[in-house]
């Protein structure tokens, strides 16, 4: 198990290096540079930056320099925001994105497992049909459409009751995170519902569920003790990619709901070709995702003893 984790970490580091290099290359292939922006950059900053990052030097030298700084944990200073270190931007805004992401992942997983199990339980009857209809909507409708409709919904609700029950946008209380998290997790939840449903149906036909029934266990006990844990395994597998979908999808939802998350900075930085912020946020997100996927692999081992004890 330890060897397995070490191997995964090694591959993860290689992946992060690859992400950094690819981003660096693509970024420099885009015409223009961050200092040729309409946002006025005064000559002192320009001189400072050019000296520190060697924008006048050949690209390969810049690459080596950048990688060296990154290894030391220094992502540099933003080109467009005066004297603001990328590290500070990440430190300040990532927690916002992370809490939104965690909340929406929580919604997606709990919702997916619950709805999927329910649909399987009522297979081919109306609750199953209703859930699967919503699932198809959830998968096919993009998150910005959900975001707009949910804002409209909140607005109508607030007007109808005459009070501010939920905030339409912004980031100041826990309640302002609820709807964005739900919108953000929608497609993942829909996908997990489908997966959970088919997985539950598969498990329901296994020999060991027949054994559990032959033991005289109640349907409820079979469901919780035997079916759920085995059916959840394939759902756990998609948690890694689900985290990727949720963090990347976060950019859109963050801008619709005016949430000061890291995603917004990322989008801004790309528009303004802010080299250091693009690199910093991309590498950071990349590293985060790689770590999450490894964490999911380890979690998988805890749920399935065959993996933990090295049988597979």
């Amino acid at each position, binding site marked *: 198990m330890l060897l397995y984790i070490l191997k995964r970490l090694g591959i993860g580091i290689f992946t992060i290096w690859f992400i950094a290099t690819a981003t660096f290359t693509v970024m420099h292939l885009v015409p223009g540079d961050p200092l040729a922006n309409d946002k006025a950059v005064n000559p002192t900053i320009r001189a400072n930056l050019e000296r520190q990052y060697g924008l006048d030097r050949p690209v390969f030298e810049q690459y080596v320099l950048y990688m060296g700084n990154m290894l030391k944990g220094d992502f540099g200073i933003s080109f467009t925001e005066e004297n603001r270190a990328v590290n500070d931007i990440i430190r300040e805004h990532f927690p916002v994105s992370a809490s939104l992401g965690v909340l929406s992942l929580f919604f997606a997983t709990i919702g997916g497992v619950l709805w999927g199990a329910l649909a399987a339980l009522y297979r081919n009857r109306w609750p199953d049909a209703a859930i699967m209809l919503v699932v198809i909507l959830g998968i096919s409708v993009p998150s910005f459409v959900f975001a707009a409709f949910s804002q409209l919904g909140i607005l109508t609700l607030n007007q109808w009751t005459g009070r501010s029950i939920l905030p339409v946008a912004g980031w100041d209380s826990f309640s302002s995170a609820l709807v964005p998290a739900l919108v953000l997790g929608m497609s993942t939840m829909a996908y997990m519902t489908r997966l959970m449903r088919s997985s539950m149906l598969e498990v329901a036909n*296994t020999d060991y569920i*027949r054994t559990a*029934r032959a033991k*005289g266990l109640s349907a409820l006990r079979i469901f919780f003790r035997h079916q759920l844990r085995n059916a959840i395994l394939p759902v756990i597998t998609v948690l890694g990619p689900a985290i990727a979908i949720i963090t990347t999808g976060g950019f859109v939802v963050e801008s619709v709901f005016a949430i000061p998350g890291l995603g917004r900075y990322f989008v801004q930085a790309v528009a303004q070709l802010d080299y250091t912020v693009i690199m910093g946020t991309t590498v950071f997100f990349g590293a985060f995702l790689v770590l999450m996927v490894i964490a999911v692999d380890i979690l998988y081992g805890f749920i399935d003893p065959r993996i933990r*004890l090295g049988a597979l």
Partner: protein
Amino acid sequence: MMTHDYALQVDNLAVEFDTYGGVVQAVRDVSFKLRKGKTLAIVGESGCGKSVTVQSLMGLIPMPPGRITRGSARLGNDELIGIAPAALNAIRGKRIGMIFQDPMSALNPTMTIGRQIAETLVVHRGLSASAARAEVIELLRLTQISQPEKRLDQYPFEFSGGMLQRAMIALSIACKPEVLIADEPTTALDVTIQAQILLLLQELQSSHGLSIILITHDLGVVARMAHDVAVMYAGQVVESGLVDDIFYRSAHPYTLGLRAAMPSNDPRKRQLQIIPGSPPDLFAPPPGCGFADRCAQAMRVCRDTPPPAYGHTHQARCWLQDPLAPASPVTSLMVNNKAD
């Protein structure tokens, strides 16, 4: 014999399945009696309805598409067919234990062996976790699993097939059931393990007074284990009786065919005897005897009218048993009955 001499009595059971191709009549009017403390073997080829018969008694066939259209099954004095799920759950695992063909897949892969066995004790006998654990160790010892204290915390994938079947037996007898149903318990195991498992079942039968229904297609297993035998063909019991009746006084051509198909050590019989043809389509069972098309002795009546069951303790559903039938290779039950 009086009713209370039987652990389980099944009468006129019929089971159907709805499929896309139509309704399959998997079990057609099956009756048998299981004597207390004895082993009844239900024998027949694949698809003859032997597994469906016992699974329908246990409420284990999926409904829908399956349904029990007729019949009754009494465990002691209690009816099993058509009772409420809670009542059935109080019987399953407690008064009837069951073991299955493939031990590798019959246990939950994400739960330790010990907890799976303890679960029945907790549910049916209300034992505490620690009391159940102590009892599980005893059960594993009883089924001859070495180092039970260590083994009970292991998962099914850490057991061999034979060990898993022992654990399965421990699970099924945990609540000291009256009846044990063994659905092809040794088919998935190799021959030496098979012999050990059969021996274990025999030992448990004598120590616990178990009544066993043994489902198999292996006549060697029948000869070794059974007191009574029911031969099934195309969803019906075609012949039933004491094990010696079935082997030495076969009263149905199908039983004779099965016996001839057994491999032997005789060097003169180089090739296995087979029964020509295949079982009838159970979507539309033939009007007469289901075996008529494969039977060398078939008469005109066999194809038109289903044969009644002839005989008493040794029964056969075959027109050859009729007083008007010509002489044939099957043992005549009329002669036997006179001798009774």
